[in-house]
């Protein structure tokens, strides 16, 4: 019966529309509650910048990550980590050099955004002595060099050497 079929279609459409509206608004509500709970309950897991992790001068290489993944972003991290592990193995094992990957979308890590002036995923090199951060640099050219792996890795290597107090 055409009239009954039309009424059934209208009802089905209304149900689907209602379900989608509830899902969309419910997702936003869920996100807001999760964000608020995280902010209330999280204790900083990562020490704030400038905290010396060891008894001797050390260099920390931060890779600042976020929830949003992308192919280029993965290359930023993997190329840098590969350089550190290949060219600075003794310094890494002795603790003189440290690698830290930090997700700034987590509330306890958001302070890094303003402290280091981050506007996207970033590699920051920091020199720490006696618990004090002596100097740091956001390696801003990574986004230009990431499409040229050897140049990118040389850029990381030269800056780490410089921060370790060696001639680049």
């Amino acid at each position: 019966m055409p009239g009954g079929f039309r009424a059934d279609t209208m009802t089905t459409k209304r149900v689907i529309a209602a379900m989608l509206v509830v899902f969309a608004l419910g997702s936003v509500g869920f996100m807001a509650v999760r964000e608020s709970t995280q902010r209330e309950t999280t204790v900083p897991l990562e020490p704030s910048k400038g905290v010396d992790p060891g008894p001797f001068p050390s260099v920390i290489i931060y890779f600042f990550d976020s929830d949003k993944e992308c192919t280029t972003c993965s290359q930023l991290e993997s190329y840098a980590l590969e350089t550190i592990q290949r060219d600075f193995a003794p310094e890494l094992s002795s603790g003189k050099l440290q690698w830290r990957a930090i997700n700034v979308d987590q509330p306890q890590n958001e302070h890094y955004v303003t402290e280091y002036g981050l506007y996207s995923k970033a590699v920051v090199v920091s020199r720490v002595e006696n618990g004090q951060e002596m100097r740091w640099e956001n390696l801003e050219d990574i986004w230009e060099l990431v499409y040229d792996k050897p140049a990118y890795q040389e850029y990381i290597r030269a800056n780490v050497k410089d921060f370790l107090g060696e001639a680049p």
Partner: protein
Amino acid sequence: MTAWMWTAAGAVWLGILTSVSPCLMATNVAAISFLARKVNRRRDVLLSSACYVIGQALAFVLLAMLIVSSLVSVPIISHALQKYMFRLLGPILILASLPLLNLLDVSLGSGRLKQWAQTWGSSGGLGAAALLGILFAMSFCPTTAALFFGSLIPLAVANESSFFLPLMYALGVALPATVFSILIAFAAHEIGRVFHKASQMEGWARRITGGVFLAVGLYFTLAYTLQLF
């Protein structure tokens, strides 16, 4: 070519690089399907595309002006936009798909809201195109944030240009999506005309747009709002 023209061309190029970033693929597909959906009304497609460009230009220029005049901090605004815009985009696209799929007007009965839903879904929609331009412009992913905040803003500051260079950048961002939507709309219209199905093409184009909005909206909601994968 003067140095100033090279700088302007550089800003357009940064915009084009932004628009072809893989992370904006889904929003570009949604934008193209939305702008091209009125395949039988070429004038409407051109006007919608122009409104989309105006929306993007408005968003980028305003943001650049706020940053250059030091009213907002780059790290704070960049972090907030990257963290929250994609999380909100999914639910917004789901809601926007309802009138396109004729799901909203059946639920609203009658009245102004229904009228608005029908306008958004079929005819007109110029304001919606501009709104979409603003929304997609502010949806930064890491790569596009690096291009805008790390390359365009320093260029605008160095050249003391908080209006013109961001405008050129916005044109570069909007160019690929608008060109593709115009080409697709015109091609679809010609195909419909050849097969004498021109009137049916528009109905299908609207449903496809609704389907794209719903699919992208569901994906963004599951991936970014609910962070299930």
